[in-house]
């Protein structure tokens, strides 16, 4: 039946686009945990800040590329301030920072509700075209999103593997004290990592906003998916995060289209549960002694 091939194509496309957005968002969460050992519960709010700022910038300037540039910077700025004013005074203690980031989540969310309001606002896609398959039409912009997300992932990988900042980040991740002994400015690396995590999430938020609209509660879903991804991929493992994001994206696409969307959520949650039971460190997580 020709419809089945159509469904398969649709499932793969949906999996690819959602996977790339989740990868970008979850990568930030994983990076922050890897380097700082902080579980950032407010991570989804940086995604939301990205989307909301994109609405403001593109409405004011009419330029989507401007939004793509400004929104991550704004989110990064908020993250730097939060790192300096909240996380550093708490000395990055794991338990304290979880509670503190929960507080940040609500503060950011309610601040955006007060300033921006409860409406979902649309941003016009910078490129709007529909790809006509024999069975259905598909948004060309969604494929552009997947491409741009892939570029951002590549840029992050280059940053971490090829630059001095990346070297410092990796050193801090492996052993904070030894890195500090060797002259790595650990505090500044922490600040940079936290900001970079926010920048990645905000970048994903900007890319998704022409598809999904900016809404003050949109961070919650992003947070949930990011957590699922980093649990499956292994918290702190960047490779694991990217692989798991596409895995979960594809499962979601295939199960949603071929069976039903609620079943896709069930299967993804089951995968998380199985990983937690049988392979606690995730698919690519580092061995803990």
């Amino acid at each position, binding site marked *: 039946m020709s*419809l089945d091939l*159509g*469904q398969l194509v*649709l*499932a793969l496309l*949906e999996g690819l686009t*959602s996977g790339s957005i989740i990868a970008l968002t979850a990568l930030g969460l994983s990076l922050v945990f890897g380097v700082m050992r902080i579980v950032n519960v407010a991570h989804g709010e940086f995604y939301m800040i990205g989307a909301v700022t994109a609405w403001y910038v593109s409405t004011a300037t009419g330029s989507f590329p401007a939004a793509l540039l400004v929104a991550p910077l704004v989110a990064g700025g908020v993250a730097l301030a939060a790192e300096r004013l909240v996380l550093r005074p708490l000395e990055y203690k794991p338990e304290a920072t979880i509670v503190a980031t929960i507080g940040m989540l609500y503060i950011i969310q*309610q601040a955006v*509700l007060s300033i921006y*309001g*409860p*409406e*979902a606002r*649309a941003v*016009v896609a910078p490129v709007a075209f*529909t790809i*006509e398959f024999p069975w*259905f*039409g*598909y*948004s060309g912009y969604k494929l552009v999103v997947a491409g741009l997300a892939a570029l951002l992932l590549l840029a992050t990988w280059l940053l971490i593997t090829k630059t001095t900042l990346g070297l410092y980040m990796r050193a801090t991740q492996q052993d904070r004290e030894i890195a500090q002994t060797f002259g790595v400015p650990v505090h500044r690396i922490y600040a940079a990592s936290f900001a970079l995590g926010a920048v990645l999430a905000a970048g994903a938020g900007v890319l998704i906003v022409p*598809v*999904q*609209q900016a*809404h003050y*509660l*949109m961070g919650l*879903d992003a947070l949930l998916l990011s957590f699922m991804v980093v649990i499956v991929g292994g918290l702190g493992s960047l490779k694991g995060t990217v692989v798991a994001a596409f895995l979960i994206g594809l499962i*979601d*696409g295939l199960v*949603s*289209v071929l069976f*039903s*969307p*609620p079943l*896709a*959520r069930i299967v993804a949650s089951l995968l998380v549960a199985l990983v937690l039971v049988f392979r606690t460190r995730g698919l690519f997580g580092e061995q803990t002694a």
Partner: protein
Amino acid sequence: MSGRRITRRQAFKAAGVLVGASAASRFIGPLSIDSALRSAVYAGAPSGTPLRIGFQVHRTGIGATYGKWYERTGAAAVAEINGMGGIGGRPVELVAEDDGTDPKRGVEVVEKLAQQHKVDFIFGTLFSHVVIAAAPRAGELKIPYLVVSEGYHVASGKMNRYTFQPGITDVRAQVTALAPWIVKNLGKKITMVYPDYAFGYDHRDFFSKAAEKQGGKIAALVPISLAESSFTKFFPKIPKDTDAIYHVMVGPGVLTFVKELGEFFGKRKPKLFGFIDSLEGVDFGTPGLEYLEGSYIWEAFPRYATGDDTQAKKTYRQKVGVDANGASTQDAKDVSTYSHMFGVWETLFVIKDAVEKSGYKSPSDYKGFIEAIERMEAFSAGLAHPQGPKRFNGKLHQVYAQQFVSQVSGKKLKVVYKTKIEDGMYAPEADYTKQPL
């Protein structure tokens, strides 16, 4: 700090101030007094003691856009009522509390309004999952609870003697009235897309029944979870030979839904019939909504002013601060929830009517207040009921009004069909008046 100890003289002074303040409060109004003192205050109160009405508002959460407009409408109605001399000669005061559009907090808000704020009545709840959670608590606390929700839960008999819906028609009546028009004009094979919770199930159950009665056939049912933000993956569930898609959505995802529907179906566009619930607070000129052009939308109260609006409709529109396009007079981008918020206005006028008819003074008069509403049979059109004339069923605690079908045309809505009130009425399945008070 031993040098700053309170002297006996200061203590006496403070006590004196407190005694004076509580005596004064009898004349200024109840500030924070327990219920025993409160009835004493009302018994000998001058006519200036305010009637306090608890307002359960969705200020945050997915219902926040509705909540914003419900609050504006409530404030406008109270200003109007106070300008007319209040309710039974007493001024009205709204005590608003946010429930976060959350069922659990909804229950807490009912408790807080009843027990802490000690309001006379509670009203205004919209989202059906919140109503279904909170109404039983209002029944336990024995406080009148007047919702503006449009779910069938009140008329179904599943709520209680204290819960009423006198301001807005329920979903069952809406879809029963609309089904003949939809089947006749859009086609017999219909796929329903609806939210996967109570409100959506009312649509599913009652529209399916009503459409089949008209010779229609439900081609597929596509429930969508409230948390969903992407919809393309649902569309393969829509059979190819569907004549029309019936869509009712809530929450911020509706723009995405319409846009993705457009991309998916393109020119092979099935006919669309939607519910304004999805697009309340949304400008039809929003990019992405072009696909709705030419499609049909249900409205309870037409958003765009029509040439033949009555004076009451015009006055109401002006009092709630809405322009001819259904947006705020302050900000043309701030679009109202016009097909729902009139229920807030009309419910407050029903409260006014019931208080005045029953001579309600204090919570000990709830029996008279409730029976007064249950005796109501019809509301005539006018400033108290700007949406239009209504029938009220006291046994079901539910009101019935005329419904509208509008076509999206030039990024605006234009009314193309009006139902009669009787079209939506169904055989009652409950009788609240038999329940004890």
